[in-house]
Each structure stands twice: as C-alpha cells, then as structure tokens.
C-alpha cells in the first residue's frame, strides 16, 4: 500500500483493474438489458441516455454487451495464464534443476514453439480444434508456455545453487518437496510479474483471433468479435467500432501498469521486458 501511495499511476491502474473486474463480474446486475436480446426496431441507434454505447446490427444494447464482454476477457486471460503456468512452471523447474538431457530436451521443445510466431501457432491450433471459447483459451495458453518455462528455468538455475537449497537436499528432502516447497517459493517473484504480462498479451491475442473471425463465436459477448462485426458497419455505426476497442485498450493498459508496478515492487527483471 505504501508503494501505491508513492506511485499514483500504479495506484490508478490497480484501482482501474479492480473496477473492471468488479464491473465484469457484476454485469448481470449492472447491465441495463440482456446482452443477447435482439430488437430490430432499435437497429444501429447511436449512443444516447437510453443506450450509453448505442445498439448493434440486431438492436442489442452495446453497453450490456461490452460489460458481458469483460467476463469473456477475464475468463480468457485467467484460463490462458493458468494453462501456461501449469505446464510452463513445472517444465522450467524440472529443466533448470536436473539439467543434462532433461534440460536439453525440454528446452529444444520450447525452442520449437519459439521458432514459430505465436499468432501462427494459435491460428494452427484453432484450425485444428475449431473455434470457440475453450479452444481460444487453449491456443492462447499454449502460445504462452515458453515464456513461463524459460523464466522459471532461469530463476531455478540461480536459486538451486543457494545454501538453503543444499541444506534441504542434505536433510534428505524428496524432489517434489525440493522443487515445489523450496525452490518455487523463492523463484516466484518474476513468475508473478509474467502472469500479469501474460494476462495482457492473452487478451490482445484472443481479441485478435476473434477479430479475424477465428476466435470466440457469436452470440457470446466478446470485444474482438464485436469489433470484427463493427468493422463491417463503420459507415452507418462508427460507435460500434469504438467502445469494444476502448475496453480492450483500457484493460491491457491496466494490466501492463500492474506488471510494471509488480516488477518494481518485487525488484525483478524478467523476459517480459523483452517480450512486451
């Protein structure tokens, strides 16, 4: 808290993120109407006191859809971060701790993932498994595995040489205890920063996939999908192409600021600096 008082921009970003999360979770209470309720008489109504963000091609209230879109974004970001962490962190821990052929094998697999630009991997996975929310989360999660694996490996390499790790080894601790209870808690700082960074990139990539028509499918409220359809109606309904994009930009900005605040707070320098 003392840190946030010293850095007003970080405090602002953290509060913004909290508000965004709260508003998304409370969307059923806050949204003025059902996000999927169509009303063709109200097609393409511009923003007004009745509909803050106007209406879309089916007369649905865009404000309600943007609020519900927050839930989709939150779900995608959390899901992708969870998947990337669950696979990437153990891979990095094992690779860094054991070294040798285990490390060589693990890191070559990561090199292959890194050799293919992330959007192409995501496109390939979507093409393979099909479109839809779960598949987008899987695709975006897989793309982010290398960042977690590399980062955890690098931190493990330095932590494993410290005295307290040798002491735990000497006391006869098993590998599970050593990796999970001794090394991981001491390597967690940069990983937490990476989680915030990945949250931001996950929202950007998932929206890009939806925008290209390969992500989350209508009628689910999703910011990328809204922009994709809004793009076809730019002439008659310019607001349709503005508000969902604004929601993405504000969320990504808040997550980016959060990651930087965490980085300063935890005193870590991560690969995130290079990748974002």
């Amino acid at each position: 808290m003392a840190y946030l008082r010293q850095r007003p921009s970080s405090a602002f970003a953290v509060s913004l993120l909290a508000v965004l999360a709260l508003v998304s979770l409370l969307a059923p209470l806050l949204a003025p109407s059902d996000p999927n309720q169509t009303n063709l008489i109200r097609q393409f109504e511009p923003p007004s006191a009745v509909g803050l963000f106007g209406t879309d091609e089916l007369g649905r209230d865009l404000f309600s859809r943007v609020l519900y879109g927050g839930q989709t974004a939150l779900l995608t970001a959390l899901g992708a971060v969870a998947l990337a962490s669950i696979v990437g962190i153990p891979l990095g821990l094992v690779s860094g701790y054991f070294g040798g052929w285990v490390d060589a094998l693990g890191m070559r697999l990561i090199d292959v993932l890194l050799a293919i630009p992330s959007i192409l991997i995501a496109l390939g996975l979507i093409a393979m498994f099909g479109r839809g929310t779960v598949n987008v989360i899987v695709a975006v999660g897989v793309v982010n595995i290398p960042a977690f694996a590399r980062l955890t490996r690098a931190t493990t390499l330095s932590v494993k040489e410290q005295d307290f790790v040798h002491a735990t080894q000497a006391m006869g601790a098993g590998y599970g205890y050593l990796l999970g209870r001794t090394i991981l808690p001491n390597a967690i700082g940069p990983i937490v920063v990476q989680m915030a960074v990945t949250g931001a990139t996950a929202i950007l990539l998932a929206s890009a996939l939806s925008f290209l028509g390969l992500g989350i499918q209508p009628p689910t409220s999703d910011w990328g999908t809204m922009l994709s359809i809004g793009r076809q109606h730019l002439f008659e309904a310019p607001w349709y192409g503005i508000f969902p994009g604004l929601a993405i930009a504000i969320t990504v900005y808040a997550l980016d600021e959060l990651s930087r605040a965490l980085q300063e707070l935890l005193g870590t320098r991560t690969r995130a600096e290079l990748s974002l």
Partner: protein
Amino acid sequence: MRQYLVLRIAQLIPVLFLASIAIWALMYLLPGDPVIAMLGPNATPEQVTAVRAQLGFDQPVQTQYLGWLGRILHGDFGTSYQTGLPVPQLIGSRAIATVQLGTMAFVLSMVIGVTLGVVAAARPKSFAARVVGAYNSLTLALPSFWLGLLLILLFGVWLKVLPPASGFVPIWVDPLGTVRMSLLPVVTLASYTSGIVARFVRAAMLDVLEADYVRTARAKGVTEQRVVWRHALRNALLPTVTVLGLQFGAFIGGAVVTEGVFNYPGLGSLVLSSVLQRDYTTLQATILMIVAAFTLVNLAVDLLYAFLDPRIQYA
C-alpha cells in the same frame, strides 16, 4: 567467430526439423477433408479415392511426412488446392507485398522509436519525457486491429483523405501511390514496435549517458547535442538490435492482423485465407517460409550484434 557461426547454424537444423514436423502435423490433423473441399460435395467416392491416391493421402503418416519434406527440400512446394496455382508463385507475389509493408513499417518504427527514446532520456524529468512515457503505454495497450479501425474511421470514413482499404502498389512503379495506399497499414503495424524501441532506447541511453566516456566528451566541451546523438546513441543502439530480433515474431503477428484489417494482399492474409479454406499445401509452405525467415533473422541479429560490438567474444 567462424566457429560460433558454424555452431549456431548447426543448432538451427534440429529446431527447423522439429518445427517442420510440428507444422506438418498441425496441418495433417486439421479438421475437414481437403479432397472434398477441392472436388466439392458432389464428387463420387471413386473420384475422391483417385485424388486421395494422387496426392499421397492414402500413404502411412511417416511416408507422407518424409515425402512432403523431400519435396520441400527439392524446392517443390506443391500446388494450391484452392487456386490451382503453384504455391511458390502464390507466395512470391504476396511475400513482396509483405516485405514492402514490413520494411516501411520497420523504418517508421525505428525513426519514431529512436527519436522518442533519445528525447525521453536526454531530459528524463521533462514534460517531453512524460509524453513519451504516455506514448509507450498507449502503443502497448492499443490492439493493432483497433488502431487500424480507428485510422480507417478517421481518414477513410470521416475525412475521406485516404482509402479505407489498402492494395499493393509496388514502390518502384508508383512511389506516391504506394504511400497513399499503404500509409494507414504502415502506421498501424509500426505503432507497437515504435513503442517498444522507444522504451529500450530510453533505458539504454539512460545507462550510457552515465558512462565515463560521455563525461569525458562533455568535459572536452563537446556540445550536448553531439554527445547525445553521436557519442551515446551509437552504444545505446546495441541492445536495441537484440530487441528488434525478438520483435520480428510480433511484427509477423502484427502483419497477419494488419493485413486482415486492411484487406492487404500479403502473406498474412494468405495465411488467413488458407486457414479458412483449408488449403493445406499453401498454409504449410507459407508457415514454413515464415518460420525459416524468423529463425534466420534471429541468427542474423546475433551475428550483427557480435559485428557491431567487438568486445563480444563467442567461445
């Protein structure tokens, strides 16, 4: 240096080989039957079997992969299912369009990024430095497809000064036409990288401006402008080179999205249409080409780094 070069190239081979398996397997497992997509729903089972045999789809998996790899290594990239054109011909014209777009965006992002980074570092507490900080945050948070939409809305729909969709005009045929047709996608593609470059140049400049040789230059009476732009910037650009290598992947991702927004006929839109139309051969060859280019760019960046900074010794 030569030893390092050989080692790096040797390291590339297994990565490219595994990547080729990954790309082939990904496309092999794609849902939908390309033969039916090619022949249409009215094809007879005999026709489907004949074409399947002709394309080698009735062979075991490993034979199909090795056959594909062998043909690729002999320069035979196959024929597009959808257009019936040889894939190299299809990729060739699109690659030129993407390289032109990418080069212009790269130059623009460097000019903006380096200038803003230097300005922010030269006077770290000034108003200008804060504006640069805001610019960096903005470019990182703005999704490129949304920025593209806003630019289309502003310049194409409201002001009507630039075309809302973009086509490929070779710069050597009509330079002015190229600028007119490509300005919006170039700005869209350059924005993200310009923010990254500005952030890194600023950080590197702040480090370099503290160095002894900069103090010596100032003590000798060299003008501040010369110290910043000639003495400090040269060394500050070194770490930026590495960042640019890492950004190449983001650049390709940006190109896929940007080309999608502007309907620009490049490699990115070719990948997209191939995914949508299940055109396996084109998709495999295009992704493989992009991956090879990506790997070579990273190798070139490593070598360039060693060349630019003679202090670096590769054992």
